[in-house]
């Protein structure tokens, strides 16, 4: 187990550095003069320009810039964005909101996806099963912005059940609807994955043996069907948590949530390279950690993995 853990952690290192390098390279080495965007149409004086270049290390060769940036990452000194705020404090303000949103989404999709998928899988081939599969297919085919705007309009404006946008500080009650929208499509995937996995496990030899031992039907399902079926589902959920924490751009825009996605959208529009690279680096870290979590959960769920 320890060896498995160490190998997984070692494997994270090249992924981490590789991803940061690619993003940094794309932002700084291929775009034009980064200061031009900051100075606007009127242009800056040469002195201001030189000062800016020194501040962002633009006067250094690319590889030195990159190494200085890496140093910043490890000393938690990410520099300032275009509006002059330290990037770290922007992240500190916005990241918790995104995390809250992502966790609501994952809990929502996990609970309902697994529950509905389990019922569908156990009743494979019935009307109930077909109905749920049809429902999930529709959910998958709706783009997230349609789902977002429609539910904002219906539940937020028409019915007035919840606030249509998320207020400052992002209270949990305001985040419920955006979280469900964000988790909606993944819910359909979780449902299908669970359903197939359960339907397959249900007919496995070891489940028949468990039944033959005289176990109650409830125990057979909870201990022998569900646990074994959860292995692919947990993989999906873990990877999805990473994706949601980094990628809720559309949902955060619709519901006006002050999160990472919203900041990233703004930074890309402004051409704020330092901000983009820092945010993407954060997303990479989240992704890599989420995958590590999946691998660990995998080992917990499936003892055969521990010794691989």
């Amino acid at each position: 187990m320890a060896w498995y853990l160490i190998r997984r952690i070692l494997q994270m290192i090249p992924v981490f550095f590789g991803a940061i390098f690619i993003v940094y390279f794309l932002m700084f080495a291929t775009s034009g003069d980064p200061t031009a965007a900051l100075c606007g149409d009127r242009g800056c004086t040469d002195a201001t320009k030189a000062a800016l270049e020194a501040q962002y290390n633009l006067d250094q060769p690319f590889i030195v810039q990159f190494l200085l940036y890496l140093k910043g990452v490890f000393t938690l000194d990410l520099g300032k964005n275009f509006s002059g705020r330290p990037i770290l404090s922007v992240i500190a303000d916005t990241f918790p909101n995104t995390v809250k949103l992502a966790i609501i989404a994952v809990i929502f999709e996990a609970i309902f996806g697994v529950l509905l998928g389990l019922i569908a899988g156990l009743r494979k081939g019935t009307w109930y099963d077909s109905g749920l599969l049809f429902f999930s297919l529709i959910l998958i085919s709706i783009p997230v912005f349609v789902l977002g705007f429609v539910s904002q309009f219906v539940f937020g404006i028409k019915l007035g059940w919840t606030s249509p946008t998320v207020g400052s500080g992002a209270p949990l009650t305001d985040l419920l609807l955006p979280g469900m929208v964000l988790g909606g499509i993944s819910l359909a995937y979780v449902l299908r994955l669970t359903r197939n996995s359960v339907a397959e496990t249900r007919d496995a030899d070891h489940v028949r043996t468990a039944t033959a031992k005289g176990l109650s039907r409830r125990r057979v399902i909870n201990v022998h069907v569900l646990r074994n079926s959860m292995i692919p589902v947990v993989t999906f959920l873990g990877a999805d948590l990473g994706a949601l924490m980094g990628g809720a751009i559309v949902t955060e825009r619709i519901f006006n949530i002050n999160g990472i996605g919203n900041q990233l959208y703004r930074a890309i529009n402004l051409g704020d390279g330092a901000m983009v690279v820092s945010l993407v680096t954060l997303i990479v870290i989240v992704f890599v950690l989420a995958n590590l979590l999946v691998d660990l959960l995998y080992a917990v769920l499936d003892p055969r993995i521990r010794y691989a």
Partner: protein
Amino acid sequence: MSTSTRVETPETAGATERTPLLELRNVGITFKTTTGDVEAVKDTTITVMPGETVAIVGESGSGKSTSALAAMGLLPSNGRVSEGQIFFDGEDITHPSRKRLEALRGREIGMVPQDPMSNLNPVWKIGFQVRETLKANGLPSTDADVAQALKDAGLSDAEQRMNQYPHEFSGGMRQRALIAIGLACDPKLLIADEPTSALDVTVQKQILNHLDRLTDEKGTSVLLITHDLGLAAERADRVVVMQKGRVVESGPAQALLQNPQHPYTQELVRAVPSLTPEDIGAEDEGAAADEIVSIKDLVKEYKIRGSWGRSTQFRAVDQVSFGIRKGHTTAIVGESGSGKSTVAKMLLGLEDITSGTIEVNGRDISTQSGKEWFDFRRRVQPIFQNPYGSLDPMRSVFRTIEEPLRVHKVGDVASRRQKVHDLLDRVALPRQLGDRYPSELSGGQRQRVAIARALALDPEIVVCDEAVSALDVLVQDQVLKLLGQLQEDLGLTYLFITHDLAVVREIAHDVCVMESGRLVEVGSVEDVFENPQQDYTKHLLDAIPGKDLLETA
């Protein structure tokens, strides 16, 4: 259905005073499929008296497992008992309530399933799986109780072993764990569904002996399901023969074996290799034919990764030397893990040779260039054990057989078509079968396709790795005869890898016996079988099921 008239069959004869423990009375079992209802079991009557061992024998699809599973309410969800009645200890359990069924399972009727690899839940420890059996049936389930159940099933160091997972167990150990589960609650009846078919003969013998002793001590009745008539006759008091969902014959084991009445039973008795040894394949003139393959000091080592990345060398094949005579059949026998398949894989060039040499027609194969390997593969072809796995499910039979011809650019489209048709004729398959896919074929047909594919390039040497082990006795007999015929017609050389000594006796001319990577005995079939020199060989020969019956018969 009238239940008042009971026909005096061998089942019910002499059973009038005592209540049978299990009675299937004129049972029919129907499966709902997309193409309509299929009656898998028809009008089947089977009786098991207290303390008795009854064997149901038949090929796959004969309904033998289905009948037994119906008694435990374990039919797949699309199956149901459509007629007749099932009694357990006098109580009608044809359509019991779920509660009654749960009470019945484990406590009254235990089960030992067929495949030890797939019947334990891989994510729970062995001890956990035994413990929940005890718990569910209201028995004490302390660590000591769990360990005792495992010990009773013949598992050594049960206290440590119970904390391990199924994947840390060998097949034999898993089967013992399953026996422990089946017998944990002292059931009155044990249904053993092919309990040892997946195991080596020697392990099979140990486990069956152990099962016999346990059920004798506890007075448990056993319903043994098997395709092996030799095994059934050796272990059971009475044998029931099933074919196509019906009981065709039943009676005391010895009588049935010595004097089979029904044509199907007669056919089965004839086909059991251990009961009627016969010679298949080219006549052995005894003259020293040329050695087409000569193997010298062959060694194969694998690296095994230990904890913390340490690795150790494991010798799978250790200093093995023997020759294969042209036009003859050489068999390598041994238990699983003896290294016999590794030798075959090295000859096929599928595994690297660690040291030693394999010479084919005087040429050392390890020094061949890529081009030479390509030509070499035309001359040496494999047939593998599992015809379900070795054929590509997405390719039709025709394309499967044609592929090697295309890869080696033999002939044009028309001549290849002709060649495939000739091959289908040769393996006695109708030409129309070419359009079918493997999933539409029976096991025997698939293995014939695999043989046709192997013969497509007119090879000199065919390596059969457990080529008939997965087949039913009758089909196995047919495939062996086909292989023998092909050898006579085409002068093929076979290297036959198997754990089944009865098969070896039928088809092989020379035998190599392997144990833990070493060659322990080499000789002609007659010498090895009549006069085995090594204890290990004697041990293997003793383990052939039905052997004693053959000698006393």
